[in-house]
């Protein structure tokens, strides 16, 4: 090996060692500061997402209302017939329901123990489901 090459290799080695010993001053609390900033940004993101959802829901309400108004203005006959048929249906069903109430009370009074237990079990099932899915979100600590 030539002396030039040897000198070059020694220079490279010295350069690498010296550079590896060098370190830059880094603020002591840099990591914690970074984590705090990242947390803040995540919170802002979540907040922005919720706000966007709410705005979209509100916009959907306005748009739907607008469509209904426009439809009622442009096609008054169709709108009137639709509303009439809905009203008639609802009225008929309400009347039939009212007619059934005495029969239901009669049936319930005959087997009230069974319906009470069924009601309690159903209530508990609904409570458990609500607790399971949104329990941690509605718990106030």
């Amino acid at each position, binding site marked *: 090996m030539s002396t030039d090459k040897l000198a070059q290799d020694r*220079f*490279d080695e*010295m*350069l*690498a*060692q*010296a*550079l*590896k*010993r*060098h*370190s*830059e*001053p*880094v*603020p002591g609390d*840099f*990591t914690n*500061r*970074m*984590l705090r*900033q*990242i947390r803040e*940004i995540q919170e802002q993101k979540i907040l922005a997402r919720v706000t966007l959802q709410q705005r979209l829901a509100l916009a959907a309400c306005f748009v739907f209302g607008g469509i209904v108004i426009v439809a009622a203005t442009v096609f008054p006959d169709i709108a009137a017939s639709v509303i009439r048929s809905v009203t008639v249906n609802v009225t008929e069903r309400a009347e039939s329901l009212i007619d059934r109430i005495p029969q239901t009370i009669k049936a319930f009074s005959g087997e009230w123990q069974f319906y009470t237990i069924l009601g309690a079990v159903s209530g508990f099932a609904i409570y458990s489901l609500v607790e399971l899915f949104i329990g941690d979100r509605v718990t106030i600590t």
Partner: protein
Amino acid sequence: MAKKIWQQQKGNFLQLLRSGDERAFAEFIDKYKQTVFLCCRSLGLRQDEAEDVASETFFAAYKGLRWYSGQAQLSTWLWSIAYRQAVNYLRKNRRKWQLLTEPNEQVAQNQERGPMLAAQHSEEAEIVWAAVERLPRLWAMAVILHYREDKSIADIAKIMKARKNTVKTYLFRGRERLRQLLAAPLEEDVDVDR
């Protein structure tokens, strides 16, 4: 001393990082903050500027981790982000010109280290670093990546978004300039030793 997550479970560390595990990301910052600051300072940013750009770099890394394929080394990937952020910062502040000029004025600005830190370094390392600081920034970056970080020419080209031949030129010129700059001080050192 407790072992870090990245030492205990190297394969899992990336998964933890991608899943947004805060402890894993804290270790990631601890492990690479020195690297990121070094990149910023090598490109001629002041300490306060380096802090801002380092924060931007870790934000970008946090957001980009889910798209990190794992083909390149994590350090190479982070170097490329830090480099891009620092160059963007210089561009925004109309200081990109300083990447290819000899930074005589910047050397004075960069001597902000406290006496404690200076004492930790050997004299040789200080002399070499002072010489590196006098190189044009792109040459210095190539030299640091090659000699300090042991990166290959291909990796350096990826980090600096340059051609391999350009990187070789930076390295060659940087090395030659360093030889000139270091010839006198290191010879003086040798004479003193004798």
